[in-house]
């Protein structure tokens, strides 16, 4: 099949030169030579000030008094600030958060005061001198406890909070948002089902663990311009929220500038605004001086967004032939003390909590519960990783109960193009069945493997995944493109190079259309003054959305190039085409004009005058078919999601029966990229995402004590994978069923690769040992102790 593309009528799938190739990344030399500059690496000269934050030791307390006298007198201290200095709220989707705590603290680590000093050491020492008196309250640490009718209220003023129209907070409760989906008649379907399975699954909180901690440098200059250098996935969103929150101080958007150089990993943790607003606000009090605030690794764990925990109550009904007839999924999210971003995770999960299946009768309740734990937020997978654990465990159990092969059961029920979604729309084209078959094939599903070690047994597991970008319906991207004298190109966008290879992919898209080689294209990191708008680099949407903006800019540039040629030589635009950095003409095979001849200086006419001039272009994309308007009681009527990316994961594990140790001998992951702009980078997402996902199921988790304090805020006790902790073999499989509205058919894959990692391990453990672990993580300890109990009872 030959695919054509909306903006590139000439391009044929089999003639692509840049798109679809394993182009070498354009940021390689920067990053491997040590040249790459991250925020903390930028020099700000001798005037640089340092900030340290005073944090709440209590999960829930009323602030009785704050005494900053001693701290203000300490050596090197320039200024001490408290909530009184900034009585302003902020929030991405719901404004439920103050810059510094006002009268209450709601999690351990919440910022109560800040110290600005001439050195980092002086700031930290002085912060210890701030005396805060608290009246300690009883914290709520569990979402189901928060849901109880007589539970204490964490946010008594919830009813007054400003929020996006698609959130439904319940006044005088701890429910910050309740996403409901009601479709068909689940009661009737369960009554008529041949088999119904109901159970509860538990998923704890997780940390992103980007190796670069959050860091921000802010400076309000004497001309009242606020510049903020941040390690952020969301420069424009940050500028917007800074301008909004600090509006009482007189700031407008044009006064606020956010600069984001390379960032050392994000995974959702650097989306939105978290600690950066502290630096931005404090800097307004020390005019003319840049102010640095860098989180320690400990703060990185307990005072940035965390992946929310969830208690998932799941009920699924099937017929004897394996047809799923009903799903009832109640998700109680431990959303934390502030849900300004996390509530949208809850929303996204609620819309899609059936998983990638065709289900006629649905009842989903996704409940965003305030708790006295750190604020929840986005993390690679955005709610889907969380609910897939229970869902895909459940599907295996149902298949076994009705005597059906788990792969066959999934093939039978997998959602395909045109099937109705839970909110009423229709499924986009997808390669789910191909993904299932290829993964099953890669792990030799159905072939039993024997270990030659008497202590170990082998097992296999499979799990499916899907995910849609979770965005406001009008989230948009834009790009500027300009040619240089030698025919090279600079592109400015405001998507972030998080490591995924975004800059390279943007260069490949422009290269394909303009025939300029990738290595002659520079794509710049964002500066909100100079780069055009991008909503955020989240939701696995920038290849698709920003890619479309770059494609449009390249197409516009090409049109301008052809227009110059037409003006000077008279060839009709539609007879012109680009090849190897030259303009050529279908009707005049002899004609060729190198781009470097004219993209800046133009072309001289016979009369000696000039035509053309610098070729510059812009492009933008906003999905114009989405809306978030739906009935709050049923979730029906809107079109909240642009499309879903789907796939399947399979593993072969070896497990030591005595120790519970799990070795992933082989893992296969197939994802439908629509079109892999750069297959090597897609494989990078597959391997990296899979390893990150496997860690969440095998050993990672955040532990809190009974007072709500995180006990393992370091890599000594929050283990993330090392070079030893990877599968022996990963088989990356790219499926390509084009997304009709994607750039060259592409859709995002960044988050998806970790979504099914947890259930696939749980299923393989069951296959190997016959024990079903229903709470994450599935540690060697849990496996060993469960197997011990099973084999001794």
């Amino acid at each position: 099949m030959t695919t054509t593309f909306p903006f590139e009528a000439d391009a044929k799938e089999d003639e692509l030169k840049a798109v679809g190739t394993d182009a070498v990344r354009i940021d390689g030399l920067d990053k491997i030579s040590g040249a790459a500059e991250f925020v903390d690496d930028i020099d700000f000269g001798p005037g640089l000030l340092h900030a340290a934050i005073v944090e709440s030791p209590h999960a829930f307390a009323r602030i009785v008094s704050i005494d900053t006298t001693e701290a203000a007198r300490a050596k090197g201290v320039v200024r001490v600030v408290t909530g009184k200095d900034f009585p302003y709220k902020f929030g991405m989707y719901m404004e439920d958060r103050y810059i510094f705590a006002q009268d209450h603290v709601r999690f351990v680590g919440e910022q109560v005061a800040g110290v600005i000093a001439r050195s980092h050491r002086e700031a930290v020492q002085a912060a210890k001198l701030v005396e805060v008196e608290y009246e300690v309250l009883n914290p709520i640490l569990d979402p189901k406890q928060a849901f109880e009718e007589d539970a204490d209220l964490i946010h008594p003023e919830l009813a007054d909070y400003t929020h996006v129209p698609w959130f439904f907070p319940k006044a005088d409760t701890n429910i910050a948002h309740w996403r409901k989906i009601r479709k068909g008649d689940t009661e009737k379907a369960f009554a008529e089902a041949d088999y119904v399975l109901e159970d509860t699954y538990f998923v704890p909180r997780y940390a992103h663990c980007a190796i670069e901690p959050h860091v921000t440098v802010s400076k309000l200059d004497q001309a009242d311009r606020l510049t903020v250098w941040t390690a952020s996935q969301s420069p424009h969103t940050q500028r917007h929220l800074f301008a909004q929150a600090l509006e009482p101080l007189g700031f407008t958007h044009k006064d606020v500038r956010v600069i984001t150089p390379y960032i050392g990993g994000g995974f959702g943790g650097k989306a939105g605004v978290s600690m950066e607003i502290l630096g931005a606000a404090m800097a307004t009090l020390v005019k003319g001086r840049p102010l640095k605030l860098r989180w320690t690794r400990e703060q990185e764990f307990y005072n940035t967004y965390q992946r929310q925990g969830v208690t998932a109550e799941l009920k699924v009904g099937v017929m004897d032939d394996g047809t799923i007839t009903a799903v009832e999924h109640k998700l109680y999210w431990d959303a934390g003390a502030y849900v300004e971003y996390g509530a949208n995770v809850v929303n996204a999960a609620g819309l899609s909590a059936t998983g990638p299946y065709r289900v006629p009768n649905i009842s989903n309740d996704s409940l965003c519960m305030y708790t006295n734990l750190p604020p929840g937020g986005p993390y690679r997978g955005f709610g889907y990783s969380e609910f897939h654990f229970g869902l895909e465990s459940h599907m295996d159990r149902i298949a076994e109960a009705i005597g059906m092969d788990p792969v066959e059961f999934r093939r039978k029920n997998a959602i395909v193009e045109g099937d109705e979604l839970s909110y009423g729309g229709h499924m986009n084209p997808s390669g789910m069945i191909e993904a299932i078959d290829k993964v099953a094939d890669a792990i030799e599903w159905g072939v039993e493997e024997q270990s030659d070690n008497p202590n170990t047994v082998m097992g296999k597991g499979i799990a499916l995944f899907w995910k849609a970008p979770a965005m406001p319906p009008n989230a948009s991207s834009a790009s500027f493109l300009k040619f240089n004298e030698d025919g090279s190109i600079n592109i400015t966008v405001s998507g972030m190079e998080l490591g995924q290879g975004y800059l390279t992919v943007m260069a490949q898209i422009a290269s394909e259309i303009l025939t300029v080689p990738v290595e002659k294209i520079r794509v710049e990191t964002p500066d909100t003054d100079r780069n055009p708008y991008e909503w955020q680099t989240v939701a696995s949407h920038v290849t698709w959305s920003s890619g479309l903006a770059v494609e449009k800019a390249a197409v516009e540039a090409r049109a301008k190039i052809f227009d110059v040629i037409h003006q000077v030589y008279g060839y009709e635009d539609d007879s012109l085409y680009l090849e190897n950095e030259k303009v050529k003409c279908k009707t005049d095979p002899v004609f060729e004009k190198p781009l470097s001849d004219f993209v800046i200086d133009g072309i001289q006419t016979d009369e000696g005058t000039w035509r053309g001039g610098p070729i510059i272009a812009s492009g933008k994309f906003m999905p114009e078919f989405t809306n978030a308007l739906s009935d709050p009681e049923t979730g029906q009527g809107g079109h909240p999601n642009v499309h879903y990316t789907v796939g399947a994961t399979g593993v072969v594990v070896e497990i030591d029966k005595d120790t519970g140790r799990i070795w992933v001998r082989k893992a296969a992951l197939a994802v439908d990229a629509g079109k892999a702009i750069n297959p090597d980078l897609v494989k990078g997402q597959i391997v990296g995402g899979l390893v990150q996902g496997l860690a969440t199921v095998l050993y990672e988790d955040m532990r809190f004590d009974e007072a709500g304090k995180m006990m393992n805020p370091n890599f000594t006790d929050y283990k993330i994978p090392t070079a030893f902790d990877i599968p022996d073999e990963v088989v990356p499989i790219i499926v390509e069923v084009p997304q009709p509205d994607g750039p060259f058919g592409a859709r995002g894959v960044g988050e998806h690769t970790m979504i099914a990692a947890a259930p696939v391990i749980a299923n393989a453990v069951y296959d190997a040992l016959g024990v079903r672990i229903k709470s994450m993580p599935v540690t060697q300890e849990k496996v060993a102790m469960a197997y011990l109990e099973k084999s001794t009872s």
Partner: protein
Amino acid sequence: MNLELKVNGEQWVLDVAAADVLLDVLREQVGTKSPKVGCERGDCGSCTILMDGRSVRSCLVLAVEAEGHDIVTVEGISYEGMSQLQDLFISNNSFQCGFCAPGIVLSATELLELNPNPSRHDVQEALAGNLCRCTGYEPIIDAVLAAGQGQGETP
């Protein structure tokens, strides 16, 4: 306190406090920014430097301990172009965000000095203290193995 040390071949005389760690002094006084601040307690490896040829966590060394020692960072091995190992990291896309990359390049450089033809296990062992959250390590291990084979010694 007075501190004399060599950084990337250049002799430095600095004034430091006893409590200053080498990582901060390299970054803030010498201006060598490739060793990164990742965890400050020896867990993540992003501050890795070579000290007299051996990989060391510069966050766990007091600056004053470096008196008279020879320090090398990624900047130091990049002055005269990329090493074969660095070239392989680039051509193999063996990085993503790049924050851990300087430390990983140095740990791998030490390994190849000691063992020009390492096994996969040797490479994993050499890199086990350098955390990378992006790549899943596969492309990194591949590049180091390729660099090892490039040196031509049989195991």
